[in-house]
């Protein structure tokens, strides 16, 4: 129970469905300066008190479980390392994957609970053979199945989402008010919970050392200087501070961030269109496709609120690059080819696959291939993946590890 309206209503509904329910608030962040010592929930003492008051009204016991250390290691440090590696991580998915439906669920199962119930807007259905499937919430506008795409069949078997069939958030708020919850009108939280002021850039800038480097075009020509590659995001237009305008006079966008050589690649807007995405870290939500090695139709969604795009996906084996040591891991890759180009895709983001409303699985994007080839150049970016041990950004052919931020990752 986060202290918000959704988890409070979810808990109340679980009680009414006849379950024996205990409210658990996760203490996730250590925020020096807020209060004396120790862990603060997501994000404040006030949230914890709100959650407790809701539990009091429902009439269930309430505890705070401290996962702050693990949250720091698994989510916050991962977020910083991914960002330093030039990728665009999604900490909420990481939290679902490693905290809410891993650390919390494991502990709960060990302590004798059967399931973790949350206020996510998503729906669990059972197929004819009794296999559990994760589906979009019936209200697509509130659907949160994307951030649950990391759940495996095992996790799904111990999850409950009582809000999945609710037509709207307004209905949840009305129900909360009816139940007498003080949080009925509490605003939704949008920001990353461990960055309370919402200034993600500033927060990261304090934690990732910045070194000046070159801004290149797609052909490798130096166009200007930047003050730290990690500060750039794929698709970014502002703040490039390139003196010379492009030959065609059109604005330039960040196409790629290469942390190892500490360079930023820019180019025309068209070059942001992505024709292929792939990643070696993929999971299936429930039953996997029958023949994942054969191309299959699906929809791909690359952000929590992006529209799904029809695509073809396939698991392919990846040759171990010459000179790289085979670890046995990462030798297969999920390759997703959208039927129309995607924009705003960056390595580190999660691609979630759907079949209709059903969540099929997900992968963390390791590399992207532009739908627009570089004029007059050979096939760059390469489609040969980097060795999985090196946190290399998309399709860049980096010769050696030369700088600290990438080595940290």
């Amino acid at each position, binding site marked *: 129970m986060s202290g918000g309206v959704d988890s409070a209503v979810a808990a109340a509904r679980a009680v009414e469905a006849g379950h024996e329910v205990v409210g658990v608030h996760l*203490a996730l962040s250590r925020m020096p300066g807020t209060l004396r010592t120790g862990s603060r929930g997501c994000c404040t*003492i006030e949230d914890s008190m709100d959650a407790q008051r809701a539990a009091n009204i429902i009439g269930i016991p309430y505890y705070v479980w401290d996962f702050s250390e693990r949250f720091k290691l698994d989510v916050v440090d991962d977020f910083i390392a991914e960002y330093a590696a030039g990728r665009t991580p999604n900490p909420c998915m990481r939290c679902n994957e490693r905290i809410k439906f891993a650390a919390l669920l494991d502990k709960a199962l060990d302590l004798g609970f059967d399931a973790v119930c949350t206020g996510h807007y998503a729906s669990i259905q059972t197929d004819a053979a009794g296999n559990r499937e994760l589906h979009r919430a019936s209200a697509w506008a509130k659907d949160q199945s994307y951030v649950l795409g990391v759940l495996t069949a095992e996790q799904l078997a111990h999850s409950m989402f009582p809000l999945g069939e609710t037509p709207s958030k307004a209905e949840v708020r009305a129900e909360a008010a009816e139940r007498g919850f003080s949080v009925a009108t509490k605003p939704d939280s949008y920001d990353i919970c461990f960055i309370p002021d919402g200034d993600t850039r500033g927060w990261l800038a304090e934690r990732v050392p910045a070194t000046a480097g070159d801004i290149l075009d797609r052909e490798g020509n130096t166009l200007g200087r930047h003050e730290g590659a990690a500060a750039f995001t794929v698709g970014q237009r502002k703040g490039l501070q390139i003196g010379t305008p492009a030959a065609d006079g059109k604005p330039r966008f960040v196409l790629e961030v290469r942390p190892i050589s500490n360079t930023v690649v820019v180019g025309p807007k068209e070059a942001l269109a992505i024709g292929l995405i792939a990643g070696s870290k993929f999971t299936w939500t429930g039953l996997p496709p029958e023949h994942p090695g054969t191309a299959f139709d699906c929809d791909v969604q690359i952000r929590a609120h992006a529209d799904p795009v029809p695509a073809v996906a396939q698991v392919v084996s990846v040759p171990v690059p010459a000179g790289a040591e085979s670890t046995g891991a990462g030798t297969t890759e999920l390759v997703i080819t959208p039927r129309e180009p995607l924009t705003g895709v960056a390595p580190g983001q999660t691609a979630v696959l759907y079949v209709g409303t059903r969540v099929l699985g997900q992968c963390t994007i390791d590399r992207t291939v532009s739908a627009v080839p570089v004029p007059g150049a050979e096939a760059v970016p390469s489609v040969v993946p980097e060795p999985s041990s090196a946190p290399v950004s998309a399709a860049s052919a980096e010769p050696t590890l030369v700088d600290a931020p990438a080595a940290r990752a």
Partner: protein
Amino acid sequence: MSIYLDHAATTPMLPEAIEAYVDAMSVVGNPASIHSQGQNAKRMLEEAREIVAGSVGCDPIEVVFTGGGTEAINLAIKGLFWARAPRPRILLPGGEHHATMDTVEWLERHDGAEPGWLPLDRAGRVDPARVADALASDPGNVALLSLLAANNEVGTLQPVAEIGELAAAHGIPVHIDAVSAYGQVPIDFRALSGAGRAGTSGGTGGSAGGIVALSLSAHKIGGPVGIGALVLSRRASIVPLIHGGGQQRQVRSGTQDVAAAVAFAAAASALGDLPARNQRLRTLRDRLIAGVHAAVPTAVLNGPTPDGPLEQRLPGNAHFTFPGCEGESLLFLLDAAGISVSTGSACQAGIPEPSHVLRAMGRSEAEARSALRITLGRDSTEADVDAFLTALPVAHAQASRAGMNDRTPTR
């Protein structure tokens, strides 16, 4: 049916205290008023003060009622520190209650105080020889020494009289946090403070040395929450925290809470024959300790152990480390079984922190997170202890399964 085994957190209010409280609340009158009703309130207040004074062997004038133990401790430490300015050093053992540690650390941040931390041994005891060394190293710069009479988590009793003597020899004032000791072991302030003794080398402008201040709380002895007392020797000079109408020798202004004082006094009168009560508690506590060892052979008793004199711990206190279990998990499972225990000191927003007391006693972080405190009180029975011992093995098996897993990263 809930079984309450967390008397160190707070105690059930005694019926006689409730009755006295309710009766006194219906009496009107500010004890500072001159009219008869004010005088009646004043009489009730001073009778209460006399009873509380009697319970710890001090003069009534030395009892300063406060809003609780924490306020008493703040008043003693800040008040003595300021009165002894510009001496910067405050000596204190590790593993003190947060009311002490945070007050000293606040003075460090805001007022140039220099904490001198005294080590605890494995049993949680302060070695008087180490205290003597710390006192002797720079006595002219020590503002005060503060220590617990009995540790609120592990129950270790400290050699306060001996330490008081050592400080007195240097003219250094000592504050005793007796909040958890009160009502469990006899306290004789007059003997502890060596009434009439003068500091021998305290320098100019300071308080007299030795034990001059002692903090108490009513709700640890069956009285109400919201009232405590600082026993403050006549010899001591102190700077007040709260200014106003000049009540209580100008040390603690504010209209005095007559009803709370009366209820406090009712609980103090009910302490009765401590040695006899303690014998019953000890027998019960030892039954619990033996039962825990039988049920969970890996459990480790913290604080003074049967290898050393058990008399060196509070009679109602048992404190264990259960290796491989989160204390938090045990607490949860026992709570689900209707038994209230604690992982140690009370915590912020329901988040238990690894016991800083066990850390100060040289235990690892994992050991400090595996602690469970069971504290008995006058209402505790053999049936309560047996119910705990029945529930413990089940809870322990399950908590062991959960292990310490919430600390290990997934990768």
